[in-house]
């Protein structure tokens, strides 16, 4: 079972964005951010992560309070260039751009891309 991280959202953070980066390795990341209700029921797609759009807006602290989110991400295998290491960092930022939470996902956040794309996941609960 995937670990779900409780993240305290500062009430004055403004519009919240969720971002993914791989700062130390030239890896291409993709992902779908799924949204869940406060009762953990599926509530559709929240946004898409691509190299050109590495973050997605989640909403204001009030609208996301109590909700759950899951990033279903991938480190892409692009060519036949052998094993390449990676470390993914996810972050939550307020409207001023400052990250109030950063973390390496426990599920697949560190690894090596070799013969196929590598999945990683990050689940969190906005509290």
């Amino acid at each position: 079972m995937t670990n779900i991280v409780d993240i305290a959202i500062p009430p004055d953070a403004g519009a919240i964005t969720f971002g993914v980066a791989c700062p130390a390795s030239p890896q291409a990341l993709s992902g779908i951010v799924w949204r869940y209700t406060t009762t953990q029921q599926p509530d559709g797609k929240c946004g898409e992560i691509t190299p050109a759009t590495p973050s997605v807006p989640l909403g204001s602290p009030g609208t996301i309070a109590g909700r759950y989110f899951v990033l279903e991400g991938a480190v892409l295998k692009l060519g036949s260039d052998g094993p390449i290491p990676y470390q993914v960092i996810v972050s939550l930022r307020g409207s001023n751009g400052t990250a109030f939470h950063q973390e390496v996902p426990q599920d697949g956040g560190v690894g090596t891309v070799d013969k196929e794309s590598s999945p990683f996941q990050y689940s969190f609960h906005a509290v």
Partner: protein
Amino acid sequence: MRCRRYPHSHAARTGARQLVLIGLGVFLLVPKHRLTAQAVTTASTTANDSATSTRIGELIQSVSYGVPASPAFELLPNKPEEVAPLVSGHDFQTNAKTWLDGTALRIGIAVDSRPFVKNGGSLSQYQRSTVRQIAFRTMLSAGTARATDGHATIAAIGVRIPLVDDGDARADSEFVQLAAGTINRVIASLPQPPLNADASFFAARMKIADKALDSLRDDYERRKWNARKLELGAAGSVQAGGTQLTPDSTQLGRAGFWLGGAVPVSTWLQLTSSGAMTWARTDSVGQESSRASGGLGLRAFPVAVFSVAVEVARVQARHTGDRGADHWTHLGTVAEWYVAELGGWLGAGYGGDLNRSGHLDRQLSLRYAFYKDRLLTQ
């Protein structure tokens, strides 16, 4: 490098046959010209067997073209069949500690790694910086082997530096964005995962999505088969009298330097150029002590069922005890086409070494064979 698919349509076969006739015409013309210009030229044909197809392949492989994928292995008596890919330079250092058993060097080591894999920066930094791209793509290779005398041990280390590579998918922001969009499209088409899904659930979905990326990667490699490239390679080896690496028993063995480049002429035609220099420590008079070569080549894949390669190289070899150097010109031309009715490739090769003194293969020859796996690949 991968083989093209074989179209079996009537139009494709008809077009291929026309090209085959043109190709044959070229082959028939070239020997006549050479027969006139070079009195030593002869033409010979041999039976259709695997040995002949091997010899046809050798026409375009006897001179080192381009930079070897792992330069160090070029200096070993036999190229290793299996190479252990190490992820980083740190892994390389760690692995190197296992090469020694006391002071004895283990035999059969073959590894390669990217020493600067952690210097590539983020993807956007990588795409903006040529220096980061060169550092990231640089490959270090090392290997050990038993010398052909059965006693001495050879250890080699080499580096390949791809200075220019327009076929680097990682540096192509448009392709990267397309690849990410493809994965996302597949994932988004699947039902939303339950909140408590485990890693194996997501891994299974990723396998489905990655299949969609396979065709995109294959298509990219096909489109970029003749992308502009420029590479440097260098390697050196030492030879120890036994397996003990002591200063008294170890001496320099061989060294090599390679430079290779390629440019696209059209979507189906590639022009390559190459230069190589190798030096070897010699024990007795008459052994080859150095060799330098440079040449040009053309590789054409106009249709999936027909391909042709032409290579010309000038080679100079020096031998211990000889004041002068041997010079010769190597010519290699190979054409092959897929015969759908027979399920294989009909290939013809013309070439050899011109004016190579004291060598049985100094004459040009024409060979043909039928074989299952094509010799020329993109």
